């Protein structure tokens, strides 16, 4: 009888194992190896993003060289991109062929989409916590940050669903770059935290022209007082400042609401007067700002080296540059006492590979990118800030900040002002919820601003009917109706494997109880 029971148990166990084997080709979750094998050669790929900035590329190369000197058995192949969208597309393409890079610069929005596949991106919580190779681990060959030394807000941004899938690499926010000379000429002061009403008012005041079409304030025939580079961020920030819905972490798209409509209506008169425009419609804000043809330019702090009369990266002919004082302020607010600005910038993730040693090698390199040398050097290329307090508080970085304006390259004042603006407002930054499809919601937010602005310029009527249709069209165009909503309030259907296991257990226990009852009954009969 014992043999029979054993067989039944074995059968149940095998059933469970078999169901577990179904889909066995899926990538398996990563486990941290006990030791990193330094006798084995590893070749890992690193897909990086730079802002069309050769200094940034050189910093990557230097970091790789320094890392390889510490770990001679790891060779890192660098591939650089200049925009996130292309990296994203390339990764998506390579997921299908299982040829993803080892380490990749990314946005959390993108990771959420990558994770539609099973274990494509490595969840790094175990790696972070590993006493040997984790953050601040005892067997690291470099002085990396501990978990506590990563700015908590930035690390939290990399928590996606059930754990951390990335480490922050650099962070920036948006800044308002102002031509102070023109504002003063119009008779206005510049507040510490400008409001939207202030921006609109000054912009409209700047639109006066003489009979020949020359703008009085700048003496030129071209003037766009206010240009916003990223209209995605514009709408998202405005909604955040108004505490209005946008989306949630479950994947609900809440963007198409009455507050959004109210915001769009507030843009209409300024699009109509052409005191407001966007990058997509008119090109880079910095081009106009530096030519004295724009008063308020909103762009990333990571674009600070393009802003101002002495900008080291100005894109226009030198004879078109106008001399003026550039003031850096937070983006406009509805409530200046409670400002909000977006947190953005690249993060790093690692992709699952069959060889756990290869994944560990990737993790070591990823951590190395958070060391002070790399963090400080890269942040100095633009108005980025390091993501670790360890780097931010270092003497080297503090000295860099103190030399604001000492020259027009490394210490370019607008760039350092932008970095300082961010450093003093980290607690005022926010991010949007991340889920598969959140990148599309972001694009849709920008499209609403672009469409309304374009339509008004094209003399179309923007009314409730127009906006309702635009909501519908934008949702369809961005496939927002195809986003899968994850309802965290219910557990959903039981996984198949679990169901089989439970049924097997019930079956085994039923049989065992049956046998027990039968034996008791038989004993009673015999007794």
């Amino acid at each position, binding site marked *: 009888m014992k043999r029979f029971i054993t067989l039944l148990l074995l059968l149940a166990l095998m059933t469970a194992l078999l169901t577990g084997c179904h889909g066995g080709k899926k990538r398996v979750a990563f486990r941290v190896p006990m030791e990193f094998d330094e006798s084995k050669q590893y070749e890992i790929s690193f897909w990086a993003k*730079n802002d*069309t*900035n*050769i200094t*940034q*590329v050189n910093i990557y190369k230097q970091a790789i060289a320094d890392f390889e000197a510490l770990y001679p058995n790891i060779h890192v192949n660098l*591939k*650089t991109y*200049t925009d996130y969208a292309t990296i994203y597309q390339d990764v998506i393409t390579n997921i299908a062929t299982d040829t993803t890079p080892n380490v990749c610069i990314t946005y959390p929005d993108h990771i959420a989409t990558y994770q539609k596949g099973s274990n494509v991106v490595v969840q790094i919580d175990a790696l972070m916590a590993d006493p040997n190779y984790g953050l601040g681990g005892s067997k690291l060959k470099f002085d990396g940050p501990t978990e506590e030394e990563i700015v908590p807000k930035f690390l939290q941004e990399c928590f996606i669903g059930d754990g951390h899938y990335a480490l922050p690499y650099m962070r920036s926010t948006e800044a308002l770059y102002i031509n102070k000379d023109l504002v003063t000429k119009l008779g206005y002061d510049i507040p510490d935290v400008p409001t939207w009403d202030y921006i609109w008012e000054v912009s409209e005041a700047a639109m006066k022209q003489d009979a020949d079409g020359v703008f009085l304030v700048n003496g030129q025939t071209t003037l766009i007082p206010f240009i916003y580079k990223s209209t995605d961020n514009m709408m998202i920030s405005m909604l955040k400042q108004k505490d209005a819905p946008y989306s949630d972490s479950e994947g609900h798209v809440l963007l198409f609401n009455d507050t959004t409509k109210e915001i769009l209506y507030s843009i209409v008169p300024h699009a109509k007067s052409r005191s407001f425009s966007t990058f*997509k*419609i*008119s*090109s*880079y804000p910095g*081009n106009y700002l530096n030519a004295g043809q724009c008063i308020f330019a909103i762009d990333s702090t990571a674009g600070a080296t393009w802003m101002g009369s002495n900008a080291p990266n100005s*894109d*226009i*002919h030198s*004879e*078109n540059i106008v001399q003026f004082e550039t003031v850096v302020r937070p983006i406009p607010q509805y409530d200046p006492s409670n400002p909000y600005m977006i947190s953005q910038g690249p993060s790093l993730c690692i992709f699952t590979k069959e060889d756990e040693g290869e994944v560990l090698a990737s993790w070591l390199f990823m951590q190395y990118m958070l060391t002070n040398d790399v963090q400080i050097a890269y942040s100095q290329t633009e108005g980025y800030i390091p993501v670790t307090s360890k780097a931010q508080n270092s003497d080297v970085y503090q000295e860099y900040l103190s030399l604001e304006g000492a020259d027009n390259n490394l210490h370019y004042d607008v760039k350092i002002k932008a970095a300082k603006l961010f450093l003093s407002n980290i607690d005022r930054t926010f991010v949007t919820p991340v889920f598969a499809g959140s990148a599309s919601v972001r694009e849709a937010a920008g499209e609403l601003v672009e469409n309304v602005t*374009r339509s008004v*310029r*094209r*003399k179309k009527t923007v009314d409730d009917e127009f906006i309702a249709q635009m909501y519908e069209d934008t949702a369809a165009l961005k496939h927002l109706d195809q986003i899968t909503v994850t309802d965290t309030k219910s557990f959903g259907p039981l996984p198949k494997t679990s169901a089989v296991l439970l049924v097997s257990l019930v079956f085994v226990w039923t049989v065992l109880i049956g046998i027990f009852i039968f034996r008791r009954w038989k004993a009673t009969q015999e007794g």
Partner: protein
Amino acid sequence: MKKLVSILLTFVLAFSVFTACGKKEKNDPTPAPTTPATEAVTATPTEAPTTAPDAPDVKSEGVMTHAQYVAAADEDEVLIECYVQDHQSWWDNKISVYAADTEGGYFLYNMTCSEEDAAKLVPGTKIRVKGYRATWAGEIEVAEGATFEILDGNYIAPVKDVTNMLGSEDIIYCQNLPVAFNGLTVVSAPTYKWDNSGAPGDDLYFKVALDNQVFTFTVESYLRGKDTEVYKAVEALKVGDIVNLEGFLYWYNGANPHITKATVIGNVDAKSDGVMTFADYMGAEVDDEVTIECFVQDTQSWWDGKITVYAADLSGAYFIYNMTCSEEDAARLVPGTKIRVKGYKAMWAGEIEVAEGATFEFLEGSYIAPAVDLTPYFTGDTIISQVPEVAALMNHLVTVKGLKVTGDPMYKYDGSGTRGDDIYFRVSLNGVSFSLVVESYLRGADTDVYKAVENLKQGDIIDVEAYLYWYNGAQPHVINVTVQQ
């Protein structure tokens, strides 16, 4: 009796029909061509032979075939039999004749001929010519001073449509034959003499384009003088006229047809009702709705239902950014294709364009705008973008010759990119320095121009061909680079 006569007549008729069929088969005026040139001609002759041939492919003993004639060396004595197709005006006992047999064409230059005999050289006349073979600027001919005799026989060669052979090497096999070209676009006004130094009555020269190639055609005044219909028709041609042409495929360092008939069938600049002219388009305000008709010159790579198009008409060029387009339609947007585009005008960093999201439809017609040479505008102390004549060529195909490469090519404008990204390189000419770009969506890493630019070295002297894109000033998108030796 009647019955018998009827039977006999029927028999004779049947016999005559039978022999006529046999004769026809033997003397087919358009037998299968034997030379590569005629094999390559696939178009239907535009004009059927007007006269039944009299064994035109049969040569007397000792007479060369066309192939033998072509293969002979210059100054070899040649004896040919051919049929007069046309001739230039007789003068001083000489006459130049365009002749043919079923295998190919002949040009008999200044053949010795009395005025009386000249009158007998009507089209179709068979002649035996004895002289010496010569080649002059590529034209194979019987040299001046050849003699001839008139034979029995008559043959008019069919006019062959060689439009699709223009620009190909094979067209030389049709040398001196009567040919037709259809749908060519006039790209330069006719001139008296090749350099416009002449006067009415002199040869007329005019340039026509097909796809991206330009050819020089001539009305040879000794063949068709100033009072002829074709001379007057060509004098009246305007740039942009779309023409059908006929003539003899004369050769002067390449195909230089002598035209005998010109028919205007349209004009590139003709716009449908409600469609803007180029001037209207340029005069429109930014964000105005625009409807244009133009011809595709080139495209960037299609992606996600969008395609960016470089287009032109006779008056100017257009840049149509991210036009809405299916992948299937994108494949049809080959150079020359005429399209009607509806969208909104935009200006982006100085670039005048039709904004993203424009729609289009295909139209009948084809035109490739010839490149404009910008080289003369490169003078010292000039900002090239500020030269009005240059600004007026925005988005147009341009060439610049003799540029000196002054900086190593870089992926992205500052070298931060990798292979596959746009390539930027600095050049200068007469003290004017500026950047050129190989736009990777226009010419990717696998293209010849991309590879050629990757290999440029400082100091190289180059000629470039590019679309005059604008980004805060002229920033040409290069499609061709030639390093000068």
